[in-house]
């Protein structure tokens, strides 16, 4: 996965993400594609959460998966979650859960509740930094005012290893998160961060908008064989546009 949260020169915020999934879960030799990735694409749907006829949240789902890993509360905030690989992964959380230890929570459910019930960026940031989770992950949050952008690096339990914030006044006008801790270099065999960073700098802050960040996320290897969709979010206007993504060969396998 690759998530971007970006501030333009007027202080407006954009959030976008590629959802990559299906690694090593079956290779389709005939088509040179990952089997599960191709199965997931037809199930992708935007969901407009309504209560009393009013929109209280929006999300991008694989039909049948009721949790939220990409979503927004129009006018308030946007969110995406990328996988974090850790030895202490979700499986331990599941075992604890099955054994009756129920204080940890499931990522997709927590994020959906956080978005639908969100009142503002800061309280949601605090909540997602400390809520007890069964699995690690990177939670990328965007808001509706200047500087409201963050990468929350979560372990299981109530621990956040790091919170990296947007800081446009000192030149940090965008944040990029793939699947590796932002304070370390990504592995040489899966460095999507450098190409994404290069293209963000090539685009420059003056050209920030849905078009520019879609182009960045469509550039190989940020777009790769695992990429199922690109979601574009603009909180102030409540825009959530999702587009299926493909990567015809030759293409990076992840």
């Amino acid at each position: 996965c690759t998530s971007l949260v970006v501030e333009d020169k007027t202080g407006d915020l954009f959030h976008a993400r590629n959802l990559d999934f299906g690694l090593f879960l079956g290779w389709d030799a005939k088509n040179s594609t990952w089997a599960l990735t191709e199965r997931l694409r037809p199930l992708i749907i935007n969901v407009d959460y309504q209560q009393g006829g009013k929109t209280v949240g929006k999300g991008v789902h694989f039909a049948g998966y009721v949790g939220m890993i990409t979503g927004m509360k129009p006018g308030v905030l946007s969110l995406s979650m990328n996988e974090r690989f850790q030895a202490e992964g979700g499986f331990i959380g599941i075992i604890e859960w099955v054994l009756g230890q129920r204080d940890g929570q499931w990522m997709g459910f927590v994020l959906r509740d956080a978005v639908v019930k969100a009142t503002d960026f800061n309280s949601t940031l605090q909540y997602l930094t400390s809520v007890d989770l069964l699995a690690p992950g990177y939670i990328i949050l965007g808001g509706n005012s200047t500087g409201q952008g963050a990468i929350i690096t979560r372990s299981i339990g109530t621990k956040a290893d790091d919170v990296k914030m947007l800081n446009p006044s000192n030149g940090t006008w965008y944040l990029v998160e793939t699947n590796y801790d932002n304070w370390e270099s990504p592995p040489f065999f899966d460095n999507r961060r450098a190409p994404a960073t290069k293209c963000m700098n090539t685009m420059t802050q003056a050209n920030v908008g849905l078009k520019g960040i879609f182009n960045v996320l469509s550039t190989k290897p940020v777009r790769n064989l695992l990429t199922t969709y690109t979601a574009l979010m603009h909180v102030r206007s409540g825009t959530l546009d999702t587009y299926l993504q493909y990567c015809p060969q030759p293409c990076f396998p992840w």
Partner: protein
Amino acid sequence: QDLPPFTEDCRSDAYPPPVKDKVGTYVLNLDQAPEDRWTGLVKPLTEKLIVLIQDIKDLVGIFVNETKAVDYLDELLAPMADTFPEPYPGELKGIANATGIPLGQVILYNVFYEVFTV
């Protein structure tokens, strides 16, 4: 960039993408009972969901006896539904009812992130 043709120069022509690739929207009415609110979405996609979950089961089958494993998973995971916070138990049971997919497998699909981080 670095490894053509597996990488490329920064795109400037990808937007707007083809209209055919734009994803539709489903309205989830939270005033509806949890058991019913997803039916309008998942029922028409039942076949695609079954194919997806079958793929995962086939993968499980590579390592262990698929039938036994799936039966065990169903037995282990189905009761978990009632341990989830509201409104998720009702939503997951509603999806299982609407698609005919066993509840244990619907739950496996919904906790797959936690499983996959291994």
